[in-house]
């Protein structure tokens, strides 16, 4: 269930914490497993992480469902996480989200037919002076305009 490569990554996180506190690495471990499994967590993958870190399955499940960065439903290869909180809203985020939805033919929370992109409305991402903004993967895109969005989205493969 957990690849050797994933184990190596998880182990490097475990090292940061005191002995016996390996469950501190659960948040990263879940992310690592999620990345390897189409950006999605399943019951079994959560259990596998729990077993690997020697913690109860339910404790890992609590974490996996508490934090927003884990997905339990199918998502696109790229997830566009669009901030719609106050500063972004004041700067027109809602219109831009509508534009994006029309462009991709999906509503927020849905995946494009080709499985490439899904859009999610999220709370403040801590880049309010660059509003409106969204995140794709590890990358922030700020001061968005319709043109900018089109260019970014068209470049997604």
């Amino acid at each position, binding site marked *: 269930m957990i690849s050797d490569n994933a184990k190596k990554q998880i182990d490097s996180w475990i090292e940061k914490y005191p002995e016996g506190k390996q469950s501190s690495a659960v948040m990263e471990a879940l992310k690592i497993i999620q990345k390897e499994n189409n950006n999605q967590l399943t019951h079994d993958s959560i259990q596998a992480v729990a077993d690997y870190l020697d*913690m109860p399955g339910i404790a890992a499940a609590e*974490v996996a469902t508490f*934090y*927003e960065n884990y997905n339990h439903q199918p998502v696109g290869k790229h997830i566009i996480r669009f901030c719609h909180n*106050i500063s972004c*809203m004041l700067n027109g985020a809602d219109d831009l989200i509508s534009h994006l939805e029309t462009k991709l033919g999906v509503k927020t929370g849905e995946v494009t037919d080709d499985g490439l992109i899904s859009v999610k409305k999220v709370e403040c991402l801590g*880049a*309010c002076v660059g509003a409106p903004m969204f995140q794709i993967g590890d990358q922030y895109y700020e001061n968005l305009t319709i043109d900018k969005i089109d260019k970014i989205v068209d470049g997604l493969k």
Partner: protein
Amino acid sequence: MNEVCFKNIDKDQCWSLTTYEASGGYSVWRKILKGEYTPEQIINELKTSGLRGRGGAGFPTGLKWSFMPRNAEGQKYIVCNSDEGEPGTCKDRDILRFNPHAVIEGMAIGSFVMDATVGYNYIRGEFIEPFDRFEGALKEAYETGLLGKNINGSEVSFDLYAHLGAGAYICGEETALLESIEGKKGQPRFKPPFPANVGLFGKPTTINNTESFASVPDIMAHGGQWFADLGVENSGGTKLFSVSGHVANPANFEVSMGMPFKDLLELAGGMRHGAKLKAVIPGGSSTPVLTAEVAMNMTMDYDGIDKAGSMLGAGSVIVMDDSTCMVEALTRLAHFYYDESCGQCTPCREGTGWLYRVLKRIMDGKGKAEDIDLLMGVQEKIMGNTICALGDAAAMPVESFLRNFRDEFEYYIEHGKSMVKG
């Protein structure tokens, strides 16, 4: 401007160790390693500096550090709060990206003061670029022999690690943050016991905001008085203000405490398209909203904003012009707290959803005349009754929006549409 956390911001590769050291970085830490400081000296300088916690609550940092039982047996921890998630706030991200070594040195100094030989910087999960910068800086610091065990053959040890979040605003609350580092969901702990006694992994722990830590090296290098003099009484030093919303040039500005709001607005290029200022949230979404009139007469320091009827918070200034529908703005904030409540305590778990749903109903044109009293009643019942301050944070905007802009709410309820947007 830009005298402390941002002092190198215009330099090339401002985040590198070279740049940092060229401007005097790590000189304090090196002195500590040579035994040239005592913890008491550092605490005294911090007390003199008037540095107050930049994470929102404004608690004096020197005093906080003095609470740690530094001589107690066993492991103690120092933790940096880079979870930055309060709407309107985005300063710590820039500190991590542009001045990560200041955070490291600030934490190192704290670790020495409190005999906390292990530290964690909790960085919000979405901050990958800042995380990479911080990790890069950590690597440099380790390679240069500034961190580790018995650094440079001294008695001093400090190991520092970054921990990444995974998307939960509540983890900015310091005890939720500790739970999160322990690999649990981010549910705040009840207090007492306080982290200084029972913190991370059950050990004494001190938590400070990124900006608080990043301010410490310069305070020590130039003296507490120097820092205090940068600001005003009760609000020492400079402060990063994230100015966002309807301004021409939204950005983070490091300015002296006590600057009049109107000057800060000026710095941010004034109102965008010359629009009319309507309202200001001065310290992040959890702080009460102010009307233009009140804001324009306010100074940007703890007492100044307090006098105006709000709070300095994290220094996140959200500026709204007269095109803003206050019902919509509040609904968005209410949704945020509803979304981010950890759910453990009853008033917040049940009350935030209630507030949001009533507001949403008003936005849907189905408001009832009694809704305003209902909203007021519900926020009052949350206020002060919860484990952590998220409950209060959810309540305060409701109270202040309704108090300052009641007519807009009444209009929306009566007409089923926005007074501003139609």
